[in-house]
Each structure stands twice: as structure tokens, then as C-alpha cells.
């Protein structure tokens, strides 16, 4: 085989490989969509982060503006300290809300930032003070049942014996109702 023919084919081979790699990077992976450049770090404390993991997205108005850095536990306050790496292009006011939402019905959890009205902006190393914890399924179900039960016991003394039947019926409804109905509200964009 001529040396030049071999070189040509090997060149084509390597070019195809690079093209495949670029194709995978651009079209298949999330390399283009996650082009977060230089970032600044802020922290936020949560009483319960639920299933939040490092490198989870940080979104505002539905657009990815950063990534969750590391998550640590503060033994003094018994809270989770989450570091957020936010893209330097976006500045948020000091009274921004950081909430933990779930993507989809049973999806991964992410942090949603809702801007407040403060004129002063968050800087590198600042702490977000307004936080909302993740929704924990079990707590919500027991909360729902408790609410339903206490509603019926409030009505019961006025209604009389028949109401105990309705109250248990309502409790039954509460039990058979899908707990997913209650989750419907926290699913913000």
C-alpha cells in the first residue's frame, strides 16, 4: 500500500471519529445547553433538602442559571448548607427566595430562585436567607390526613351522630385520594 493512500485513509478515519465525538457532544449530550462560564458562589441553608444532589441545576424562571456545588451539614444549626454556583452574568437581589422543586412528577430535584425586590445584589460568598425546603412525601400525606381529620372533628359537635359517619367517610376519602393531588401545587416552573 502506498504510504500516501494509507495516510489519507487514516486521516479520514480520525476525522470521522472527531466528527462523531462532536456530534455526541453537541447533539446528544448537554454540552451546549450547559455552557455556564465563570460563576460566583452563594450559600443557602435548608432544614430538609430532600433528594437534592450536587450538580443539580439552579434555575430561575425556568432557565438554568447555575449548578448546585457541594452540600454540607451544619452540626450547630442542624441544617443543610448548600453552595450554589451561579453564572456571573446573572445578579440576584439579596432577598431572593431559594426553593427546592421537583422536575416533573417523580423527577430530580432542583433549586428555583425567585428574585425579590431588594436593590442590593448578592455577591460571592453571600448567604440566601429566604429558603423553602423540599417537599417530603410522607410529611405531606400525614399533614393532609391530619387536616382532614381536624376539619371533620370541628364540624362534628354541631352535626351530631350522622356526622361521625360523614367524618369517617371524609377520612376514608382522604385515605383513598391520591397523595399526588397534594403535590400538584409545589410543581412550579
Amino acid at each position, binding site marked *: *500500500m502506498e*504510504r500516501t493512500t*494509507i*495516510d489519507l*485513509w*487514516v486521516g*479520514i*478515519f*480520525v476525522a*470521522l*471519529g472527531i*466528527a*462523531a*465525538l462532536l*456530534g*455526541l*457532544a453537541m*447533539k*446528544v*449530550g*448537554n*454540552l*451546549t*445547553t*450547559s455552557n455556564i462560564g465563570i460563576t460566583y458562589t452563594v450559600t443557602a441553608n435548608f432544614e430538609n433538602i430532600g433528594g437534592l*444532589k450536587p450538580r443539580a441545576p439552579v434555575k430561575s424562571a425556568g432557565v438554568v442559571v447555575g449548578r448546585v456545588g457541594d452540600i454540607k451539614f451544619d452540626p450547630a444549626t442542624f441544617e443543610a448548607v448548600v453552595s450554589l454556583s451561579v453564572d456571573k452574568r446573572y445578579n440576584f437581589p439579596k432577598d431572593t427566595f431559594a426553593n427546592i422543586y421537583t422536575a416533573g412528577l417523580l423527577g430530580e430535584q432542583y433549586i428555583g430562585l425567585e428574585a425579590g425586590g431588594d436593590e442590593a445584589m448578592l455577591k460571592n460568598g453571600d448567604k440566601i436567607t429566604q429558603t423553602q425546603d423540599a417537599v417530603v412525601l410522607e410529611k405531606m400525606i400525614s399533614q393532609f390526613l391530619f387536616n382532614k381529620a381536624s376539619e371533620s372533628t370541628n364540624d362534628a359537635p354541631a352535626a351530631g351522630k350522622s356526622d361521625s359517619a360523614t367524618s369517617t367517610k371524609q377520612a376514608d376519602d382522604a385515605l383513598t385520594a391520591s397523595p399526588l393531588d397534594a403535590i400538584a401545587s409545589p410543581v412550579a416552573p
Partner: protein
Amino acid sequence: MIRFNLIVGLVRSLRNVGHRFTERIWRLGAGARLFWLTLVSSGESFRRFHLTIREVYFTGVMSLIIIIVSAFFVGMVLALQGYNTLQKYGSSEAVGVLVALSLVRELGPVVTALLFAGRAGTAITAEIGLMKATEQLSAMEMMAVSPISRVIAPRFWAGVISMPILAALFSMVGILGGYLVAVPLIGVDGGAFWSQMQANVDWQDDIVNGIIKSVVFGVACTMIALFEGYDAPPTAEGVSHATTRTVVTSSLAVLGLDFVLTSFMFTV
């Protein structure tokens, strides 16, 4: 008398097993030694890069056809089977994610490695074995040229370079095959196909890990092929047995390494 024969037979088969076991351990050691010698003699493969390029042609470029055709079929089958099951749960738009992740994480590196072992690996083993049988390696030694630098090392680096390229091509062509089945044929939404995929396939965790896997497989398959050829008895029968051993050992090694690598890379 019969019992005596039984015992003798048993002892003989035990000794056989023991002998085969020690034989394998010995060969593992010899293989490791050749691996070390290859790495140490690699200077020439890079100083005279055309040697390596020539081998990239014979291992990589010649494997292109089988890799691309196989990838196409694998991608199409994945899309078909995936759609079959996903549409029962109303998640047929996730078929893109299924095809992409299956290929990029597992099938791309592993199937490419198995095909590579079968096509390029056996070619390498046969070539080296024949060179040994026809005294070409001896002739080289007598001419004060180290066969390891001149023959073995360039083929090793060619294999290590070709494997990730072939695996990336496999994944990409597979995804395209899956796209062709899912979108024009079945009717899954094209936009959803790509957007779901982009949202769920991570560059670092999935694609880069897949590439790392294919490099590891490249090292394993190429080294096994080279060793079997170099160690083959210099007869026709010896070389043919060596090529069979290359395929079997490479396949087992790839699958075993895949398990080890997957447990490192893809556990939370």
C-alpha cells in the same frame, strides 16, 4: 481394581486442572511482561509515527465497515424494542434517551470492543504468529532491530488510538439509526427525540465515561491479541489456536472490565 482406576483417573484430572491453572497464571505473567516491554519500547512508535499510522489503517480503518453497519442495526433494534415497551407507559418520547444512554454508556464501548477483538484482534494475532513462524521476528533480532519496538508497540498504540474513535462512531451511527426508526418510521416526535436526549445525557458522566471505557477496552483487546500472536507455537495449528484464544480471552476481559468500570463510574 476399578476403584484404583477411578482414583488414578481422579488424580490425573486434578493434576490436569492444576497444571492448566498454573499454565494460565504463567501466561498471565508472560502477558504482563510483554505489556511492560511494549510500554517501555514505545518511543519508536511515536518518533516514527508513520509506523503507527500504518497500523491504524489496518486495525481501525479496515474495521470501519463492520462497526458502522453493526451500529446502524443495533440502534434501529434499540429504538424498535424501546418504543415497544415505553409506549405501554405513555413514555414513547423517551425512546431517544433510551437509545442514546444504552449506546453511549454500554453498547458503544462494549460491542465495538467485541467486534474489534473479532476482526482486528484476530488479524493481529495471525500476523504476529505467522511472522514468528516464518522466522521474520528472529531475522529482525539478528539485524539488531528490536521486534518489540518495530512490530509490537506500533500495533499496540494503533489499537489504543482506534478503539475510542470506533466506539464514538458506533454510538453516533447507532443513535442516527435509532432516530431513523423512531421518527420517520414509527412517528415519535423528532424535536422531543433530541431534546429529551440532550436533557438526559450528560457530557461528563455519560459520554466521557464511555470514551474512557473504550480506551481501557482498546488496551486490553490489543494487548491480548499481540501476546497470543507473540506467544503462539510457530506452527499452523499453533497460530490457529492462538487466534481462537484471542477472541475468547478478549471477550471475557471486555465483559469483566465493563462490570468493574461500570460499578465505578455509574453508581451514585
